[in-house]
């Protein structure tokens, strides 16, 4: 890493180059971005994709109050005080979000939830949560993205559209790059897409298995059967829309591969079946190891959603959907996951970090969220921030805030921020809330 400051004509706006900055817009977490920074504006983001450029160019300092209580500007100290008070008074608080902040901030959020005996959940529960459950059921045959780059000669993108959602996955890690055992890059790789839609990714692959909606499980099971040499009849085509002959051809290619990878997205986890679909895909990769090397990796969305899984797992033993109210962690998706807790109208306070559930939860969950006391930390204005009791404007991780994030293959990567923000980081704010909560809890113990 190097950060060089070069004086320009306008001395108040020095030009700064940040080499190998990290983009946190998607789970690829590309850490080879060269930024040109003029004052508090990033003007160039070399190596970034179209999404990454939009991420870097649109994070300038907005003129918003540092904190709001009931929609009115408040001092930072008042807001910290009120936030601690809400959480301490709550009978059933939940902590939610966390996928767009640093691991350092995630740790503090876990600690707060532990001190107040609340429910701990992250955006994983509405993204690859089902895969998290499937890992516990069938395990995960995994690898790093570097291994994909250097070894993978057969790629199956399943229920995802990386051409639009993770643009550099193709060029940096999976489809295109020349690697040690795939020296000709794209020419040495066969790529398959499993998707109901003919997306932009379909144009980049060799074979598109355009399955019928809601038949991922059946397709994975049919492939598992073929992997084991079990004869199938034509009902497979009726159910999945894919001719048996084509499936056999794909299986043949899969068996001949030296290193195969299934990269699966939310088309698998969000469709009826959910964790059972993820299990089927993971089990297929596991079964293929009787023939050759195969792995399966979820394509993770938010910049540090993988960090959230890691931090929450190393702290509590479970990745999401955890209740800490009894003094020890209990894991139960469907019970302690935020969509359910809010949908059933149970929680009475929420601490929401860098997430916008009021825009993307179901209507019953949204209605309940609006009715309870919420504390929201977000760099940008959102629907969730608008309904918050206490709202903090925060500095943006990766752009203003240093720290650690995890790439989608569980590799920790440091952040190299571009310029300072007048706002505080999630870490600082959460630390202050935690301090205030402890102070009051200890005072109550001493007084009692």
């Amino acid at each position: 890493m190097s950060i060089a400051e070069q004086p320009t004509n306008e001395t108040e706006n020095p030009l700064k180059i940040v080499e190998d900055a990290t983009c946190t817009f998607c789970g690829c977490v590309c850490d080879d971005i060269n930024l040109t920074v003029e004052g508090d504006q990033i003007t160039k983001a070399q190596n970034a994709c179209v999404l990454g450029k939009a991420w870097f160019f649109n994070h300038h300092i907005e003129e918003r109050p540092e904190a709001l209580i009931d929609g009115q500007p408040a001092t930072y100290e008042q807001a910290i005080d009120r936030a601690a008070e809400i959480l301490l008074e709550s009978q059933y608080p939940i902590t939610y979000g966390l996928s767009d902040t640093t691991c350092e901030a995630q740790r503090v959020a876990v600690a707060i939830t532990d001190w107040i005996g609340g429910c701990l959940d992250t955006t994983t529960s509405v993204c690859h949560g089902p895969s998290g459950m499937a890992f516990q059921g069938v395990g995960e045959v995994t690898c790093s993205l570097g291994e994909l780059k250097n070894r993978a000669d057969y790629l199956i993108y399943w229920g995802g559209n990386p051409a639009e959602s993770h643009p550099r996955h193709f060029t940096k890690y999976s489809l295109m790059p020349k690697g040690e055992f795939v020296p000709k890059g794209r020419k040495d790789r066969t790529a398959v897409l499993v998707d109901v839609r003919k997306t932009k990714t379909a144009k980049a692959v060799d074979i598109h298995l355009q399955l019928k909606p809601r038949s991922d499980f059946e397709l994975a099971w049919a492939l598992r059967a073929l992997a084991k040499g079990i004869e199938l009849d034509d009902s497979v085509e009726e159910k999945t829309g894919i001719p048996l002959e084509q499936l056999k051809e794909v299986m043949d290619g899969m068996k001949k591969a030296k290193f195969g990878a299934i990269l699966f997205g939310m088309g698998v986890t969000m469709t009826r079946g959910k964790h059972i679909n993820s299990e089927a895909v993971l089990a297929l990769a596991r079964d293929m190891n009787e023939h050759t090397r195969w792995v399966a990796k979820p394509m993770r969305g938010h910049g540090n959603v993988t960090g959230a899984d890691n931090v929450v797992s190393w702290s509590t033993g479970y990745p999401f959907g955890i209740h800490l109210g009894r003094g020890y962690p209990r894991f139960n998706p469907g019970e302690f996951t935020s969509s359910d807790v809010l949908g059933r109208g149970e929680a009475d306070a929420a601490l929401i970090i860098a997430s916008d559930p009021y825009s993307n939860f179901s209507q019953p969950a949204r209605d309940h969220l609006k009715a309870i006391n919420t504390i929201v930390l977000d760099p940008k204005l959102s629907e969730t921030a608008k309904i918050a009791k206490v709202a903090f404007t925060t500095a943006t991780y990766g752009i203003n805030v240093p720290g650690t994030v995890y790439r989608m293959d569980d590799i920790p990567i440091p952040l190299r921020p571009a310029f300072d923000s007048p706002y505080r980081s999630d870490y600082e704010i959460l630390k202050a809330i935690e301090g205030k909560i402890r102070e009051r809890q200890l005072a109550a113990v001493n007084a009692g």
Partner: protein
Amino acid sequence: MTETFILIPGRTSKQGTTLNEGKYTEGYQTEINTLKMNPDDMERLGIAEGEDVRMWNEYGSVVVPCSTGKDELPPGLLFISYGDKSSQLMPGETHGSGMPDSKGLDVQIQKISNN
């Protein structure tokens, strides 16, 4: 005339770029509020490019402009970017998984001007 379709909410690159510009920009709002449909389905139902349709299921009802999904969508399938509109059609129930059915939703479609 009412017809049943399967709706796939998802992410698009335009949604990603406009999201960074801000959730309250016209670009983002247009992207998350436009429904994509197979061109043959549009023709059969007499829906013109950009025309509003009502889309509903047992959980909610929304009105959205409809646009051609070109060759991306097979007949019977609809696409919309994740956002407020798609969330209104999402059930609260997660079947013990924490994840509501968020893709592959059965919805009814009706052209508004025929009402």
